[in-house]
């Protein structure tokens, strides 16, 4: 083979590999899920497509969690501040946090942000 053909072959091969990598990357992109952490321990991973409700307890504290319409929220909580309840429904963005009850809900979906300040 001539040098030109080798160069063409190399370029075609590299393009093929890059395309395959992109395809594999997209195929591996996760569905919209949320992870629930209690006192730093992952206790649950949820598909947000399935409506459900859960009660997470830590010591004497509790959070009532509801999944509906593709979003998750803290419907009720034993904490004083109710910051977690006021956070509302979400399926991406900043984690839902209940500091007094050591509860964190994070999202696996990529919303395009590296972080949310606030």
């Amino acid at each position, binding site marked *: 083979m001539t040098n030109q053909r080798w160069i063409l072959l190399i370029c075609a091969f590299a393009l093929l590999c890059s395309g395959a990598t992109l395809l594999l990357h997209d195929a591996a992109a996760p569905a919209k899920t949320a992870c629930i952490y209690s006192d730093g321990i992952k206790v649950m991973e949820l598909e947000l497509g399935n409506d459900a409700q859960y009660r997470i307890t830590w010591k004497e504290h509790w959070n009532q969690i509801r999944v509906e319409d593709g979003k998750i929220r803290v419907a009720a909580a034993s904490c004083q*501040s109710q910051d977690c309840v006021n956070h509302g429904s979400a399926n991406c963005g900043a984690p839902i946090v209940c500091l007094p009850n050591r509860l964190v809900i994070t999202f696996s979906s990529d919303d395009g942000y590296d*972080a*949310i300040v606030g």
Partner: protein
Amino acid sequence: MKKILPIVLLGLLLLSGCAESAPCQTEFFAMDTLMELKVWGDATALEAAREEILRLEALCSATDAGSALSHLNQEGYAALSPELCALTEDALRLSDKTCGIFDPTVYPLVCAWGFPDDSFRVPQKQELSALLSYVGTQHVHVTDAEVVLDEGTALDFGGIAKGYAAQRCTEVLREMGVTTALLALGGNVQTLGTKPDGNPWVIGIADPAAPSQAIATLSFTGSRALVTSGSYQRCFVQDGQRYHHILDPKTGRPAESGLASVTVLCDNGTVADVYSTALFVMGLEDGAEFWRQWRDFEAVFITEDGSIYATSGCAQWLSGCEFTEIRP
């Protein structure tokens, strides 16, 4: 040529299939908030950053009875480490720079409102008047290695400690050879270096009306501290009235400045933390004037009616919203 080609092919194959390196990351509670650290480097550096935050929490917490700061507040005097003395002096200097609008001595007021332990209550006017006599940096006396507080005065580093921790973490990471990291310490975000893919950092500003969603986007490269102070953070409702945690040291009550949030961008995390609190209390007009006077930070103001204002230095980084530019 024929011998080299297979090697070249193999190299190209490996390069084209190489995914962007994943960061080491951890999440934990400290300083009464959620800490999320991402470090593009080895796990040792990540652990060092985590330990630095926990070390500073043990030093600066006003609620942990065993901390150096608690000891100072209880006893009224303490021989502090050079680091804590320097941080106290920084807090006093920045308080002076903001004409006392950021004030590290508001702790008696913060306690009266029940914010440290979520025992929320609305103090009576007379109670606030009495407590205001303990507030003010003139009640704090710093010598070479000792801090003395006047009777009834207590320090609170809640408006400076997370920013300082972010600052220290970047220093620790740099010393360990880390060039890229993203630290989210509660509402504070600190970027270090350039993203591995070379793209700008994309940071959302929380919508005060729906904090899980972003109302605007900041895209920039390099190391920067971003801190937001907002009335939607840590608040409680009593008798239908909402009370937030950012107290005006002149009145002892939650600041009513017409702002829903302010986000400060700055090279220094400690300064960003202090300025975000101070600007929130100042409000839009005085905050813009403060920026014109000092020009050592940029800011995005969101008013209670949802209008957005950005200082001209960060206007180029802001997208995803309509905003008014604040000019020098």
